């Protein structure tokens, strides 16, 4: 059973649709007391970094439960899009601190004359080391991205996928039980299904 965290931000509906489609039991939950019993978590998110962190910090008990699940109980957690960025220490998008679970930071795409920001559309994410989350993906797997900021890990050991858009950036990261993907697996057809299937089996 996978618990999708609903903290008032992010497309929880499409995530639930995708898990249903691949035959994985999932629920949407915002109550920290119920989240405390979760076996596996998905942290979705769209929108701005500060708004998302403020939402998490304002739901009584949610931040503590998330830290406990991630760092003490160490159950598998998958951050998606902004959800992944929240796992970093801070973002150039805002002033509020991130969850800081993976040594990394969130940076703005450099200004470039011909490339538009946000990075929106289908791009290749290339696994750069074997990992449970990226099992059975081909080398040219395309995923759907929408973001104006990207994640930079402090140590390449935490990077598990890389993507090129003007610069090379970390499109999937992992530290022990904590995983993050910048793209939207729930909107990326078969490759996205593979990622979510892999996560459900971790």
């Amino acid at each position, binding site marked *: 059973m996978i618990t999708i965290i609903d903290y008032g931000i992010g497309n929880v509906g499409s995530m639930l649709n995708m898990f249903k489609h691949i035959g994985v039991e999932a629920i949407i939950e915002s109550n920290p007391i119920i989240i405390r019993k979760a076996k596996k978590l998905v942290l979705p998110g769209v929108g701005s970094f500060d708004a998302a962190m403020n939402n998490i910090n304002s739901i009584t008990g949610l931040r503590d439960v998330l830290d406990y699940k991630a760092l003490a109980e160490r159950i598998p957690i998958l951050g998606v899009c902004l959800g992944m960025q929240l796992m970093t220490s801070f973002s150039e998008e805002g002033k509020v601190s991130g969850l800081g679970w993976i040594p990394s930071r969130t940076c703005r795409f450099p200004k470039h004359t011909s490339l538009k920001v946000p990075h929106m559309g289908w791009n*290749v994410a290339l696994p750069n080391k074997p990992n449970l989350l990226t099992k059975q993906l081909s080398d040219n797997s*395309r995923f*759907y991205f929408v973001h104006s900021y990207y994640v930079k890990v402090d140590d390449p050991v935490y990077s598990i996928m890389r993507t090129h858009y003007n610069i090379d950036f970390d499109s999937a990261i992992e530290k022990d039980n904590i995983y993050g993907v910048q793209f939207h697996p729930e909107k990326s057809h078969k490759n996205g299904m593979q990622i979510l299937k892999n996560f459900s089996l971790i």
Partner: protein
Amino acid sequence: MLSKRIIPCLLLKDHRLVKTKQFKNPNYIGDPCNTIRIFNELEVDELIILDINSYSKNHEINYSLLKDIATEAFMPMGYGGGIRTLDQARKIFEIGFEKIILNSLIFSSPSTVKKLVDEFGSQAVVGSVDYKNNFFSKKNYVYVNSGNTNTGILVLDYCKNLINLGIGEIILTSINREGTWLGFDLDTIKNIEKHINVPLIAHGGCGSEEDINTLFKLDICSLGIGSLVVYSKKDKGVLVNMPNRLNV
């Protein structure tokens, strides 16, 4: 490298899928859910669904149909037609769509558009701009209410205004070319693209893989297609299909 996007634009009327020509004469294509299931199998880049009946007074957004669609389709999807409030938009996002597409609302209530952008982010709000070429002045004017009302505003000025409202993407539709298979209105598309800094989806007139290639060579990265993906050929029967990625 970011892939170029080829986006089927599907039209709903009375909960059925139709295809128009120059915004008129809706021709019945099929059941929306079945068709979208096929596009999902074909792994299309993205889908745009527009309810063309929405300007009528009694129109209600068909949430249950949108829900059925969202549980069948695992690509990014945008919906347009009759969105006037934040609550309606929120419902559409909750169902599993990631973009709302606004047309007449931009003209009638720019302040609501701004509120939608502030609440859901630029990336989630697409501006739909329908324009028609004036026979006498040769200028392009924007039309709203499913192409029925001339705003009297030139298309470039209108698009610039959309950017000021914070809209994250524009779908630009040539009413003259829609459903005609005559190819894209390249001059207008090029001119608008030069002046805006958000992704532009060119729409209206695409009739062949060659049309797609011509557009991509101009560095226009996204396009919408209608007739080409629901008919087997011009003036022929219904066939849901996609251009071969290898040829474009």
